[in-house]
């Protein structure tokens, strides 16, 4: 009797792994390098990846390059058998985070320049846009002083708008750990912003 009663919950447990996830189907298409599958996957995840990258870089053309680079890396990883098995979105965003960090590191190695006089007029709308740009620049500088995890959690929660639980899944942490992390991240961000001129 004990076993009979055990069978059901255990079998449910197994079914969690055995049922093909939508992501698994997507990954099968990727392995074949099927253009349709790649196209569908790109359409589904590109907006999130792009927003994630753009938030930190504040440079649309660079963000565009890096966001598509994330997908090219995914293809390469899947092709060589090192791709994600589950949590595809988590993999994409983590890769994006690495690329962004590398990019920012490279930028810091070069002599930093403030907003140049000849900044291209991306979206004309003088003072308001300048203020917005300046605010974003400050935020980015402040974010750069945070740890990788702190930057990641702020991006996921406040830029991407993911819930606490979604963020926990993507960061492979439990919800309580994310609560603590976001508190410390915001506290650090507050300090960094306060120290800026």
């Amino acid at each position: 009797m004990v076993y009979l009663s055990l069978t059901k919950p255990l079998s449910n447990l197994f079914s969690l792994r055995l049922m093909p996830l939508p992501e698994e189907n997507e990954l099968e298409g990727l392995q074949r390098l099927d253009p349709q599958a790649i196209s569908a996957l790109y359409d589904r995840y590109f907006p999130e990846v792009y927003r994630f990258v753009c938030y930190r870089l504040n440079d649309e053309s660079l963000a565009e390059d890096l966001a598509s680079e994330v997908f090219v890396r995914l293809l390469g990883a899947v092709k060589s058998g090192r791709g994600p098995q589950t949590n595809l979105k988590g993999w994409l965003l983590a890769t994006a985070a690495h690329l962004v960090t590398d990019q920012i590191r490279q930028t810091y190695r070069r002599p930093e320049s403030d907003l140049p006089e000849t900044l291209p007029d991306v979206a004309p709308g003088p003072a308001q846009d300048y203020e917005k740009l300046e605010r974003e620049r400050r935020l980015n500088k402040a974010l750069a002083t945070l740890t990788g995890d702190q930057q990641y959690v702020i991006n996921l929660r406040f830029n991407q708008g993911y819930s606490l639980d979604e963020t926990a899944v993507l960061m492979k942490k439990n919800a309580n750990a994310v609560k603590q992390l976001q508190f410390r991240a915001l506290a650090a961000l507050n300090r960094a912003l306060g120290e800026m001129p």
Partner: protein
Amino acid sequence: MTSETLFDALETCLEALDRGDAVESCLMRYPALAEELRPILISALEARRAAVTEIPAEVAARGKARVLQAAAEMRAERQSQPKAAVLPFWRQKNFFSARFYRLAVSASLMVAFLLTGGTGLVNASSGAIPGDQLYPVKRGWEDVQLAFVFNPQHKVELEHKFDQERVQEIEELYTEGRMEQVHFQGVVQSQTPKFWVIDGLQVAIGEETLFQGEMTVNSLVEVLGETDDGRIKAEQLRLLATPQAYPTGTPTWLPPTLAAPESTHESEDQSGESKAPAGGDQEKQDGEDGSEGIKSIPPPTPGSDLSDDQASFLPTGTPRPGSKDSSDSESEGVNAIPVPGTQTSGSQTGSSEHSSSSSEEEHHSTPYPEPTKVEK
């Protein structure tokens, strides 16, 4: 007030901000924490204000073009390389993950059994077929059984039994018309460009099929594929052992197109088998199955290094890695496999000279090198 409630309070306030509440109204809920939370919430608002919302359509389009271009280059590169080099098996997580998963399941089951002293779940899983919820339990239990059998002879016997079980499971899947992923080992019995017969099961070879190792007729291979309309679409094929000459029993498989009751083609009566000389009883039974292909099968060769008992444990036609050859028996082993769906069965009953120049063009010849075992 503990830190834990501070973190919880922040989360509650953030959710309230999301709903459009003002900072101060959020803080009114936590007057004791208000001073501590206020700068944090202001930072949160600052972080949120910079959120990227607009994605220009041309940005997405340009990025997609770049990704598809990269995919096209990778496809071209893959086509220019031999398939086996593209995805080496040892670098593929998927291929072995099923086995690790099963072992993990079975290890936890072992603990459960030790604690409770029963096998109810295993019994419940005994009729499971691939895709069933209890199937991992069944396979895991088989792994456990194999791990605890130390007598090599019994181990071979058990492996043979499980091999038969795989074939039966797949036939059940056919009967039920289910498409499920299957993973089994078997002997290549015939090869055509599009279809191989492995342990009596028709395996469709497609462009996507990945090969690991040079597989010829009589090779022992590992198959990962999916059942589909009475055949298995192969995804990955891996060589486990090259064919080797030994006095085979009789290949008792029947091509699915020729005979209905393939599922019972191999005798399950182990005791009956073990008393007979290698393949003797089985051959007789197979003859009764009515296969035309069977006529071409030569009798087993005496002088085998294998004892009768050992030979009877081998899946008929299965070259077991590590079994020894005697040179004069080599010819028999080579000839032992008839070709399903092709003619000239009579021509194969001859001696070794005919063996490697098989009359079927599409069949690979089998040079029968020294037995080599491929690392699993």
